[in-house]
């Protein structure tokens, strides 16, 4: 699941009638692109060659992770997930499908839930990254979501749990007073192979209730 980029199996057939519009246009001797309407000339001020590429060798990146600046020298092809796990030893963030479909690698980027396996580390520069390691207080006090996962058995094997917990934290920031349906929809990007969804939903609803009564 997840790939829209492969050429197989996307429901499209050959062009209807066997003639694509492109070949039709080419057959007519018209330049493809004839459909466009010019809006005006652009003045470009960029000097050619002003941007030099990085890669395939390592480049130096500064990342802001759980409030601390981290400097890593990594190949620019690496994802944020690769850098968190392999370079920074923040292995709470898991890697399962590696293609955005399961949510096990969820982190917060400027507060938004993102699959760290689908984001290049270079793109994470200048953004606030929060991983599961960054949720508890510096004195070790658990985030209410973490405490509720323990109380309600929100995990079995636990492999999906860090992603669930991070997504649940971001979700409650977005929806302080969610319904059960809101939780189901809000966490639908996190797949649990053990099927412990009932515990997860109960935990998130309980954490929401506790936070609401404190607020």
């Amino acid at each position, binding site marked *: 699941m997840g790939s*829209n980029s492969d050429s197989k199996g996307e*429901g499209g057939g050959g062009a*209807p009638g066997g003639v694509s519009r492109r070949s039709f246009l080419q057959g007519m001797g018209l330049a493809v692109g004839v459909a466009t309407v010019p809006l005006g000339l652009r003045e470009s001020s960029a000097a050619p060659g002003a941007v030099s590429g990085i890669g395939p060798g390592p480049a130096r990146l500064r990342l802001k992770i759980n409030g601390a600046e981290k400097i890593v020298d990594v190949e620019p092809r690496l994802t944020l997930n690769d850098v968190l796990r392999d370079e920074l030893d923040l292995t709470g963030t898991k890697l399962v499908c590696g293609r955005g479909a399961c949510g096990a690698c969820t982190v917060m980027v400027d507060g938004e839930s993102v699959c760290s396996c689908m984001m290049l580390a270079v793109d994470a520069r200048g953004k606030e990254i929060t991983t599961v390691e960054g949720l508890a207080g510096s004195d070790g006090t658990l985030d209410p979501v973490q405490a509720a996962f323990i109380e309600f058995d929100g995990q079995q094997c636990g492999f999906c749990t860090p992603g669930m917990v991070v997504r649940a934290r971001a979700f409650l920031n977005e929806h302080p007073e969610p319904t059960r349906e809101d939780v189901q929809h809000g966490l639908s990007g996190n797949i649990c192979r053990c099927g412990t969804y009932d515990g997860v939903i109960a935990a998130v609803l309980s954490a929401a209730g506790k936070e609401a009564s404190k607020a």
Partner: protein
Amino acid sequence: MEILIPKTLDEALALMAERGGELTPIAGGTDVLVSWHSREHESLKLLDLSRLGAELGSIRFSDEHLHLGALSTYWQAIDNAQVREEFPLLVAAAKEVGAIQIQTRGTWAGNIGNGSPAADGVPALLACDAVVVLSSKSETVEAPLHEFWTGYKQTVRQSDQLIVEIKVPRRDRDFQHWHKVGSRAAQAITKVGVAMAHDAEGWRIAANSVAPYVVRCRAVEKALDEGRKFGRPEDLEELLAADVAPIDDIRSTGEFRRKVLARIIYFGLAEPSIKPLADVGA
């Protein structure tokens, strides 16, 4: 793999002018990074658009249009009260793209740029008569989205052009319907889907996963514009034969797609998924 990271749109367009043919632009990366493992790392050359947020990242309204910057995401549209009010069809589609972790990163322009026939943002944009704004180093042009594709993953975009914006006309739409059929409620690629809208200019019916690219169903639109009423879904099926060419694949069969498309249009006409607001006057 090599990555070029321009800091301004002008720099990006200069790079496209020089090397556009070999560069793959990357926005949210939710399509590009799915397939990159299988690519030759050494030969892949990415043009990272992520530093262009100031120029391409916003959603704004002008008198006539909603402007979706090329880096604007589904999440930004869902999060925008004015978009929710004026373009519920776009928001309905946005909420069904992948799951939240994809919606926060996936862009409308990337959905068009990837060009999958199963793309979910595209039918909603088509039903709202969207226009793609393309820039190169020398000029900016517009292409109506319904003329953007010329074949499977073939488009009118030239190798030196970037999508800079998608413009969607602001109109009173008195009918809007959205229906996606997938194998589960979230995180599923569309087996067949439809976006429908009616306004003063007539009917727009766009279907995904039923042709080499997302298509408008012109025969059905014409019949509806002429005031035809459909008594049974089978009559729509006949008309759709001219509009779509669904195939059998790993997700579904051509026959299923044709039959279901006729029915989601038929039942949508009777009961649209998006209810127009009751106008109770002053």
